[in-house]
């Protein structure tokens, strides 16, 4: 940025009468904070890599887990998360334009561009909230089988499923079964395991089909599993034939049913997958949230004319640094958690 001939007052300079690198104290400290925060996120992502690399279970495939769009049924792999990334990057661009307007002491420009940045931030937060809620709600849930089963899939492949293999249900049946399961547990906790109980059958029939009546018409094998290098695992396969589905359904282990994600189990696979999802995206979302709050406060200050009075808009630059940092972290989280 080109200089200007205003004499520098002693108050602006750092305590010793000098200012290293010609930057103000606030800007320098913001850079220091960003380096330390970047180390924190770097540590988190490295921890994610170590845990993922060390996990024996197959690690879920991002495209299969995140394929929903709000309000639509069907599979749109990673489209929503790409949209979120785009929103955040656009908000970064509007932030840079706000900084540039500040350098021209253009108050109206700053108000416009900073306002758009805040809007982008809110959209990102809302989208992330929806992602979380859908992740927790799940896409039909799954269960583990208690004994080995040989099954022929729709594509004609014969798979040998070991005991403990995860099998997933399709969304419609899965949600229905989930409701029936929780209804059964509500009326008689023990009955849920037997599938019927004397006292609860009447109440169950009135509200939901009894557990034992519900049977799936199709199941999904290897729903979230990636194809392994040299291993026998194959990508997601559907099983629709009546007898094949019955074979797997008969081998189901009742207490292993998991719908979506919660504190003790999740339908996507290893518990660490859900743990890291919530922690990393949550920690990042917290940063976005605080960034939006700070942006709003500064935006109100700009409108009130505080920076015109001060003579410079360097505060916009400083919060701009923080906002770009938040965007940068998201780019890395997106690459390592969802893509790779």
């Amino acid at each position, binding site marked *: *940025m*080109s*200089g*200007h*001939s*205003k*004499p*520098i007052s002693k108050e602006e*300079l750092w305590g010793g009468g*000098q*200012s*290293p*690198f*010609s*930057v*103000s104290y606030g800007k*320098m400290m913001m850079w220091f904070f*960003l380096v330390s925060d*970047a*180390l924190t996120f*770097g*540590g988190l992502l*490295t*921890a994610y*890599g*170590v*845990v*993922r*690399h*060390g*996990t*024996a279970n197959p690690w879920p*495939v991002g*495209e299969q887990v995140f394929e929903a769009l709000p309000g639509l049924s069907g599979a749109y792999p990673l489209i929503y998360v*790409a949209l979120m*990334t*785009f929103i955040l990057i656009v908000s970064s*661009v509007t932030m*840079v*334009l706000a*900084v*540039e*307007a500040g*350098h*021209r002491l253009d108050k109206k420009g700053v108000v416009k561009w900073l306002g758009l940045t805040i809007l982008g931030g809110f959209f990102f937060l809302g989208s992330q909230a929806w992602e979380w809620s859908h992740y927790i709600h799940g896409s039909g849930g799954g269960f583990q089988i208690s004994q080995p089963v040989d099954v022929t899939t729709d594509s004609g492949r014969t798979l040998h499923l070991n005991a403990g293999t995860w099998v997933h249900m399709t969304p419609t049946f899965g949600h229905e079964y989930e409701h029936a399961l929780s209804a059964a547990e509500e009326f008689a906790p023990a009955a849920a395991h037997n599938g019927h109980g004397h006292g609860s059958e009447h109440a169950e029939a009135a509200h939901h089909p009894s557990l034992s009546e519900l049977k799936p018409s199709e199941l999904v094998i290897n729903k979230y599993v*990636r*194809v*392994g290098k040299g*291993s026998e695992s194959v990508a997601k396969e559907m099983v629709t034939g009546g007898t094949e589905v019955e074979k797997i359904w008969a081998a189901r282990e009742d207490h292993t049913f998991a719908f979506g994600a919660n504190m003790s189990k999740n339908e996507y696979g290893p518990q660490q997958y859900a743990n890291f999802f919530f922690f990393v995206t949550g920690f990042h979302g917290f940063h976005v949230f605080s960034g939006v709050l700070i942006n709003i406060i500064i935006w109100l200050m700009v409108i009130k004319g505080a920076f015109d009075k001060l003579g*410079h808009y*360097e505060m916009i*630059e400083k919060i*701009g*640094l923080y906002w770009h940092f938040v965007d*940068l972290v998201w*780019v*890395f989280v997106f*690459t390592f958690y969802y*893509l*790779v």
Partner: protein
Amino acid sequence: MERDDLIVNDSYSVNARHGEQEGAAIRKKIWKVTGLLTALTVVEVFMGVQFKRDGGNVWEAVKLGFLFLTLVKAAYIVLVFMHLGDERRNLKYVVLLPYALFIMYLIYIGLWEGVSVQELNNSYR
């Protein structure tokens, strides 16, 4: 040797200002970099869609490609959007070098430990 750390030519960061013409040129640069970042993202998404995740060498190359393109995007964001490229050379080094060294070590040690944990899991679980 010119001291890089003191204020020279009155170019204190607080006084950073530019006029309309310079502003127009700067805005043009911002839009150009935005276009570049978008193009890089499109390439990444294309790579992710085109190449099958089959555990072979192609996918390893795709992953490396993702990493490389993400680093290029990060460099542009830090140097242009965060204006680190316009700062004094030494400030650039103060911010980037410790981080680069530390993160490279962390990734190396993370991979090494991760491989070890996986081998132990496979042998003893």
